[in-house]
């Protein structure tokens, strides 16, 4: 029996190759099943697990629980030709583009400005069009190990034409149905409240698609406010958001989301964020990077010399909402 099933329309955008079997083989060969300590510095984690040309996902950077310190380390190491999953990314996309790290972006939403504008116009960065939900659905499909996922949005948009989506006739209902290609990023950067040294990680509060990103990505770098004992993890297995066996590196980075908020722990450094948002929208990111990224040795040096304990303490004091953010 061979019946026809129509493909009614297809976007023309290049998309990260869909290869569920290839991803499975990566997982088989690279993800450690045994409880092996994965604690390392940000420098080592980025050196070992981010290669030029990698597809990178992260979320909410400089907003809440973003992997801010890890992204600054990527810039400091001057990684090249990254392909960004630019959903819910805010200023980080522009920072990475300004630093020359990026050559492609799948866009859901990012904060736009002259840096990205120039890079796109000059052909240094190519953009493919999606939406936040379509991007998180693609990552969801990657985390499920399937090649694509039907979605009920995105059809009829112009973005569809510059994407990897298709419209097929659903073999069950006969209705036109959009399908989007699964996304298995090369690297996920995820900042969490607590993790053990093996990567069992707890997240409190909201998220965009961090659990899915951890499962969908070939290399997963967790940065954490706090290292907890595995005994603590075992005392409440219901709190484990990300299981250790999809994690490749654990980096202990207190204030790792700075200048963004870490719900329940510290508030956003609003002045800092307003400054970098201004630079993103009006120019001046090179000055920002010089001071906050290239001008410091690492995250701890930055916090110590440029922020200082007193300021950090103020941010901690301003985090007055605790409900739901404690284990």
């Amino acid at each position, binding site marked *: 029996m061979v019946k026809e099933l129509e493909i009614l329309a297809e976007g023309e955008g290049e998309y990260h190759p869909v290869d569920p079997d290839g991803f499975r083989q990566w997982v088989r060969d690279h993800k450690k099943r045994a409880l092996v300590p994965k604690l390392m510095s940000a420098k080592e984690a980025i050196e070992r697990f981010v290669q030029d040309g990698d597809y990178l996902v992260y979320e909410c950077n400089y907003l809440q629980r973003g992997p801010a310190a890890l992204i600054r380390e990527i810039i400091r190491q001057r990684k090249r030709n990254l392909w960004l999953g630019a*959903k819910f990314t805010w200023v980080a996309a522009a920072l990475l583009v300004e630093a020359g790290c990026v050559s492609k972006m799948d866009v859901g939403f990012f904060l736009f400005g002259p840096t990205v504008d120039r890079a796109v116009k000059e052909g240094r960065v190519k953009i493919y069009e999606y939406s936040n939900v379509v991007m998180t659905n693609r990552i969801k499909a990657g985390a499920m190990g399937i090649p694509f996922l039907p979605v009920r*949005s995105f059809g009829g948009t112009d973005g569809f034409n510059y994407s990897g989506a298709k419209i097929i006739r659903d073999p069950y209902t006969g209705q036109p149905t959009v399908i989007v290609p699964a996304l298995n990023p090369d690297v996920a950067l995820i900042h969490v409240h607590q993790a053990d040294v093996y990567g069992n990680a707890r997240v409190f509060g909201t998220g965009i698609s961090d659990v899915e990103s951890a499962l969908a990505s070939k290399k997963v770098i967790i940065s954490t406010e706090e290292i907890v004992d595995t005994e603590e993890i075992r005392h409440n297995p219901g709190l484990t958001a990300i299981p250790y066996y999809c994690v490749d590196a654990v980096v202990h980075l207190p204030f790792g989301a700075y200048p963004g908020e870490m719900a329940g722990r510290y508030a956003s450094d609003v002045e800092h964020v307003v400054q970098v948002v201004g630079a993103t929208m009006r120019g001046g990111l090179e000055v920002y990077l010089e001071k906050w990224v290239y001008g410091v040795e690492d995250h701890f040096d930055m916090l110590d010399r440029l922020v200082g304990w007193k300021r950090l303490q103020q941010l901690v004091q301003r985090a007055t909402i605790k409900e739901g953010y404690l284990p």
Partner: protein
Amino acid sequence: MIQMQQPKGIPAAYFNEREHQICVMARLIEDGKTYWVAGGGTPMASILLAKKLYAPNAVYVTEDGVLAPEPALPLDPIMTMVSSRASYRALQWGTMNSVGFHAQIGLMDYGILNTLQVDPYGNVNSTLLGDYKSGEFRRFGGPGGADSIASLCWRTILMTDHEKRKFVPRVDFISSPGFLDGTEGARERAGLPKDTGPYLVLTPWALFDYEERYLRLIGISPFVTMEQVLGEMNFRPKIAPQLITLEPPTEEELTILRTEIDPRGQVTITGDIGRWIQKREDGTYGPVEAEPEGRPNPNLPRSW
């Protein structure tokens, strides 16, 4: 016919066009329905005002999937989503995926969006101005959650400024779908769920609905004329036989808006707030001659 609450309180004598737009939107919120709201700004201010005055059982759902929060106001600058204050006292903390699926199964009655451009068919552009193919364009951030809101909610409401460059015959880029080419069934042919689509467009000057999937003027603010409204559009909308007057804000609405929801003036003082409007001695409304100082611009407190 559109349902709109009677304004509560004494009509205000002095307000700006952004405040007016938010207050009108608040009166349009239907009680007991879910609202999936894009970002912060005017859509969020409107639903929060509505919940305090007109629609206590309306359910606010944030773009990133927080169900029915009671935000700890005022919110920090920029932190109108994904922050602990914005997500406070919710009934459930979700994710982008979870709220997307809740919307996909039909749980979201209304969506409220801002937009860069809109056309007669309610298509929304938040991606770029210019021509995508030639590369001659000014780029913006992309649809974010708006595409899903416009696709999956039963009814989509747009809030935008009343400017010629915003109302165009065809948006430069469909970031989020309206009625597409305006033909019957166009959304369904594109795979979108049945019986969804654009519902209202509200500007500071005017209110529109759709008649046979084409924008129709149904209400005008008391401080503008029909000529002004049509003059600031690049196409001619349909016009309803009876036009509603979009009553100006009341003192009660403004007090809640200014002191509880937006005390720092992030939405209603800074940025593009339109003109200041005053009630004249003859009872009519019009722009003030000299712009007032207003409240002091709420620069970030030094103590932060």
